[in-house]
């Protein structure tokens, strides 16, 4: 049994007009965002949307070319009073800088530097995930993910950022991970921000969702509320076009099959009821993944 320092309650983590450019390429543009304490956030976006860059800057592992990252109102950058409260778990790879370390040495560093590290919990997770004490570059991709998940959870950091935590994990381990995450969340009330591409599987875990597109926040709200704002409307093309024109709706996404058309629209319940009342039109709910595609697909499913 090892002694563990109890972690303080999480504070808001804020991006204040964050900008990031790599050479001439702008990745984040004047990004304002606040991760409220004690929530599980889903951070979703297409490849290159700036998710990893954002999480890196918020945790002090990357620097912003403009703006600031703040934790509890204090700057994150090079602030030792703040950095111990944040943990950013990134996907490990065989070609990465840290891959020459053994699992044991990786965890040893966590124990040394994370102020709220829970060694008993780390040992328990290593056992649960059946992690061998090998060099990281000799592990499978899934096992590498388990190493970074173990360190992230055992860090007991009030705010834990996980970048693609389930990459390479099989469905059984993914389920196990989400269960462990929820247990930990219920026990501690830590803030978790999870970026993932496997949206639908994780959607039930996210209390709130932030969608990034081309370096900008296009959605930041409660997951259920966000999903409730979107519907698929389908029916004969002429009928559907007339209804959209009448209600002055710009569809987010359009799919046409012969004379049949389906569009994704954003609106309120009253609008959806009006559309549902029209003859020949069908209104269907969407899931988070559909919402994401509608917001970030830029209509690319047309045709």
């Amino acid at each position, binding site marked *: 049994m090892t002694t563990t320092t109890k972690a303080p309650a999480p504070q808001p983590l804020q991006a204040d007009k964050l900008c990031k450019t790599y050479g001439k390429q702008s990745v984040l543009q004047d990004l304002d965002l606040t991760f409220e304490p004690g929530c599980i956030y889903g951070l979703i976006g297409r490849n290159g949307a700036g998710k990893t860059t954002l999480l890196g800057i918020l945790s002090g592992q*990357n620097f912003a070319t403009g703006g600031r990252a703040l934790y509890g109102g204090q700057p994150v950058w090079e602030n030792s009073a703040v950095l111990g409260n944040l943990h950013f778990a990134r996907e490990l790879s065989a070609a990465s800088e840290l891959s020459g370390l053994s699992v044991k040495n990786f965890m040893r560093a*966590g124990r040394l530097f994370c102020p709220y590290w829970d060694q008993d919990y780390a040992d328990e997770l290593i056992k649960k995930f059946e992690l061998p004490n090998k060099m990281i570059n000799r592990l499978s991709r899934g096992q590498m993910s388990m190493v970074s998940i173990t360190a992230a959870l055992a860090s007991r950091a009030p705010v834990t950022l996980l970048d693609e935590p389930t990459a390479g994990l099989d469905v059984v381990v993914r389920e196990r991970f989400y269960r462990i995450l929820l247990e930990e969340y219920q026990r501690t009330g830590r803030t978790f921000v999870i970026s993932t591409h496997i949206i639908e599987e994780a959607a039930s875990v996210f209390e709130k969702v932030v969608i990034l597109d081309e370096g900008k926040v296009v959605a930041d709200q409660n997951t259920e509320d966000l999903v409730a704002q979107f519907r698929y409307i389908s029916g004969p093309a002429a009928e559907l076009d007339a209804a959209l024109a009448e209600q002055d709706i710009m569809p987010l996404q359009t799919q046409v099959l012969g004379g049949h058309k389906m569009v994704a629209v954003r609106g309120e319940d009253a609008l959806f009821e009006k559309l549902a009342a029209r003859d020949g039109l069908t209104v269907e709910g969407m899931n988070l993944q559909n919402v994401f595609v509608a917001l970030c697909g830029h209509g690319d499913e047309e045709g």
Partner: protein
Amino acid sequence: MRNLVRYFGLTFLQFLGVVVAFVVLVLLGVRYTPLSLFEGYVYMMPTMGLWLAPMTLAGCHATMALPTYFGVRRRDSFLGMQILAVVMELCTLILAVTATSLISTWHTDWDIVMIPASIPVVLASSLVVIELSLLAQYLPRGAKQRTASVLMVFIIIVLTSSISLGVFKALDLPMPFFPIHVLRPGWAVFTLVCAAAAVILGVVTWHFYRKVVIRT
């Protein structure tokens, strides 16, 4: 800070183990076999500080990145690495002084001895090589390759010159640079120039390291 000492302490102990093992092996060889068998390694002793620690630290990016990954300030891990480099060098040089003195007591004709007054000279020059090897890891790709090449050439020159000491000695040629003593005017100037260069390179390395993206 205590945890950084424990963290870098392990790296230091691993390095020290290698250096001590090398020195002990050479000493045993010199003591119990004819010197000529180990001459090549013995000539390397005075220059050990110039290549052993720099070669070890040339691949230390992960060692520096790991504390930052777990929330340590860059400034602290950079400082920790600088202290580690100096301590590694000092230990190497103290071992070199001890070993060459021991060898000279066993073989009276042996005159390439490192004396304590040599330590500042070799330390300053070694720190230049170390800072170069650290810098090479944080430069943009093109510059990184050029600096790494310069570093490799430098280390090859050092290794070659240490071996050529043996040739000089075998041919009974004069060795005006010995003894290396910090109070000899030429070596004093060399030490000061190297110390200044090491500080400048350290500042440049920090300039690049402080904004490096921690990647896993």
